């Protein structure tokens, strides 16, 4: 902070401000983008380089109890990937689930400056916040799991909609979360109550409740819309990973009825019915999903692309983890979180010769290539579920380089490829579109007005890449990374360490709701009500993003 910078001669990609590869100066003052910089400001000559806002990851799994379980269950993943300390940065371990410090440095090392942990149980919020605090450089936040919450279900079932909305706001605020997350709504209740049971359609009855996933999802969309959250409900649909789930996904999207709703890692929810003689091999449903998103401006999604190689399935969707463990190999974890959620972890390897894995890879690419609005179909691999975030540069190359994509297509399971639509797609992403799907788009969907753009007053999170025909190489190692105006990486090397901010929301609610919640706690929780809310010590460095009513009220 306090220092000023002037980046000159770089080709600037700032889609939020309509700047598409123009050579112009970018000035930084006091951690923000400024119209000008003082004459003695440090100059960075970015000739032959590309200047973009810092990357924004809208959906990844990087902190909290389940991430830590995933680290603990695969020590072998860390042995060969040691992240050594440097003069300014700390050490860690890598693999598909890196340690907290390595996570922050590796994100920064790819030019990312903001990332959202996508699934934390309310009870795990403290742990997640402590880990996020130890995740350097990047700004971060998390989505809180509310889609299988017993008390919220009760309120919804009894039609106490105002209390439901207040309770949702309470839960988001006291956990310091950024957005509400639904994971396979209703699935956990069945999974916990019956042997190997799961939700199969939006109209299944949810265990003992007089509720269906349809009613639950609609209720959450309604409440989140009323609260005016900067990021809407973030949904992991029912039937994720199952052949033929495209119908469920489309039905869920229709429930939004014009209201903003975000669909997480839709690739995993875009599978058509089984093909040929097989009972289980999915076809591609990417075209239907892409078409629906294209024509419904209230819907947004991140792709959740699959990249071949080691990954870790890490989900609040416990029955899904149970299904995958039979393909996954030797070990898995299943955990339950009281009245709040389930959890499953399976170390997994995607193989290009395996039909289903190749289909998943193709569906992810199809979604990208069929999307007509990059602002609403944004970049993710659901790290580490579809692949580690360190594979992002390769995914970018697959989108930008048709020949590279073709060469890779020749190596994967051809039957799967035949049944996908990938062969018909010759589109190549431009740098401007990459800047949208990796930065400007996610920032806009998150309601982070000062991120993902380089307009005056924006956070000075800037990445400078050296242009290279090999886009994988180009995006693997930015020459400079600037966070909050500080030059973190210079000439590919860390110069200083940096602590990012926690981004969270604090929606207003009627304090009377605590009288409704407290008795439930005393009856059913292992933790006292008074000890549940996370206090400010867990977020020493934070920024509250206002809800729509708060932002409107703040204006004179």
């Amino acid at each position: 902070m306090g220092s000023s910078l002037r980046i000159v001669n770089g080709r600037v990609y700032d889609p939020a401000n309509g700047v598409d590869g123009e050579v112009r100066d970018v000035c930084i003052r006091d951690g923000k983008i400024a119209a000008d910089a003082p004459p003695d400001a440090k100059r960075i000559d970015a000739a032959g380089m590309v200047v973009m806002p810092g990357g924004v990851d809208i959906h990844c799994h990087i902190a909290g109890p389940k991430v830590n379980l995933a680290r603990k269950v695969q020590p072998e993943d860390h042995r060969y990937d040691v992240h050594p300390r440097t003069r300014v940065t700390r050490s860690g371990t890598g693999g598909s689930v890196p340690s907290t410090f390595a996570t922050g440095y590796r994100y920064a090392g790819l030019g990312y400056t903001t990332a959202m942990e996508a699934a934390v149980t309310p009870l795990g919020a403290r742990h997640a916040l402590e880990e996020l605090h130890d995740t350097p450089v990047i700004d971060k936040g998390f989505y809180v799991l509310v889609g299988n919450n017993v008390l919220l279900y009760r309120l919804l079932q009894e039609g106490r909609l105002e209390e439901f909305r207040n309770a949702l706001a309470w839960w988001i605020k006291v956990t310091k979360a950024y957005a509400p997350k639904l994971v396979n709504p209703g699935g956990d209740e069945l999974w916990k109550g019956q042997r190997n049971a799961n939700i199969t359609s939006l109209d299944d009855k949810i265990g003992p409740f007089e509720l269906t996933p349809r009613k639950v999802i609609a209720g959450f969309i309604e409440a989140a819309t009323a609260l005016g959250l900067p990021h809407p409900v973030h949904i992991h649909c029912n039937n994720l990973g199952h052949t033929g789930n495209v119908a469920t996904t489309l039905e869920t999207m229709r429930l939004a009825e014009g209201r903003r709703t975000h669909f997480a890692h839709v690739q995993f929810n875009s599978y058509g019915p089984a093909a040929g003689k097989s009972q289980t091999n999915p076809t591609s449903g990417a075209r239907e999903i892409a078409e629906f998103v294209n024509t419904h401006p209230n819907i947004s999604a991140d792709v959740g692309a699959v990249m071949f190689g080691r990954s870790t399935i890490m989900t609040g969707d416990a029955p899904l983890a149970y299904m995958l463990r039979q393909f996954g190999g030797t070990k898995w974890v299943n955990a339950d979180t009281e009245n709040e959620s389930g959890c499953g972890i399976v170390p997994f390897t995607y193989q290009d010769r395996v039909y289903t894995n190749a289909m998943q890879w193709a569906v992810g690419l199809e979604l990208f290539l069929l999307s007509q609005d990059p602002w609403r179909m944004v970049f993710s691999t659901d790290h580490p579920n579809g692949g580690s975030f360190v594979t992002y540069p390769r995914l970018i190359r697959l989108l930008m380089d048709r020949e590279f994509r073709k060469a890779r297509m020749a190596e994967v399971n051809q039957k799967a490829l035949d049944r996908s639509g990938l062969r018909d797609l010759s589109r190549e992403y431009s740098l401007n579109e990459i800047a949208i799907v990796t930065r400007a788009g996610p920032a806009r969907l998150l309601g982070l007005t000062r991120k993902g753009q380089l307009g005056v007053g924006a956070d000075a999170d800037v990445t400078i890449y050296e242009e290279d025909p090999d886009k994988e190489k180009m995006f693997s190692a930015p020459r400079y990374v600037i966070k909050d105006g500080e030059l973190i990486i210079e000439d590919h090397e860390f110069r200083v360490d940096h602590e990012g901010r926690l981004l969270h929301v604090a929606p207003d609610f009627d304090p009377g709701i605590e009288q409704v919640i407290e008795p439930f706690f005393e009856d059913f929780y292992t933790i006292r009500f008074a000890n549940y809310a996370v206090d400010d010590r867990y977020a020493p460095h934070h920024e509250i993003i206002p809800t729509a009513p708060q932002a409107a009220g703040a204006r004179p």
Partner: protein
Amino acid sequence: MSLAFTLRTPPTVPLEAEVLTPARLAGLSAPEAAKLSVVHGNERADLGEFFQVQGTADGGGAGEFRLTGDLSRVKHVGAGMADGRIVIHGSVGMHLGAEMTGGEIIVEGDAADWVGPEMTGGRIVIKGNAGHMVGAASRGSAVGVRGGEIVVFGNTGNEAGHGMRRGLVAIGGDAGDFAGVSMLAGTIVVLGSLGWRAGAGMRRGSIVTMHPVELLPTFSYACTYAPLYLRLLLARLRRLGLPVADAQVSGRYQRWSGDAVELNKGEVLILEA
């Protein structure tokens, strides 16, 4: 004359010496070898700060060198080696010959834990005792030794042959608990007695013992016979210097199948008294 290292200053904390392989030392003079970098605790140091080095390395990767002294705090000796020979006059520390693919290591004294984890070839001979996890899978890995031989004249600790898939672990003395736990295939021969829960979770593979043993309830008696392969194997172990008695070579063995919680295709062979 090949290189000879004599421990002059015993390390006070573990010394990580992956450089002590025939390939790394190939063609080096004594002063050059003394300059090689090791990690002492959390600090880098030169090999020469701890060892007196004499001689000149043999050319090529297939050279031989000797280590003398109490090396029980020197770790990773011969780790990843592919050929050549290391002779250790004294005891040696953890991770001896870890992930080695070929060559031979002879230890005249004792070895600490983790002898030859995940090795794929070559031979390790320990004349004394060895610690836990002889020929084991590293923590988290599903597969341990994939080939090669480990011969221990003395006793070993727990989990010998953990997760091994191929190869041989031969123990002249007693084995600790959980010998052959989660074994996928391969052979473990114990001339002494087995500890508790031998072969727990084994899928395939053979565990041979010369003494009565109480097995897990998931092992079931199959037959008593004199397997031909065992005769050949024991004769070979005798040539390697293990005290194999004639009665063991020509003896009949009870075959117990297990572990039924897994494939049930493994076997524990117990010499009939």
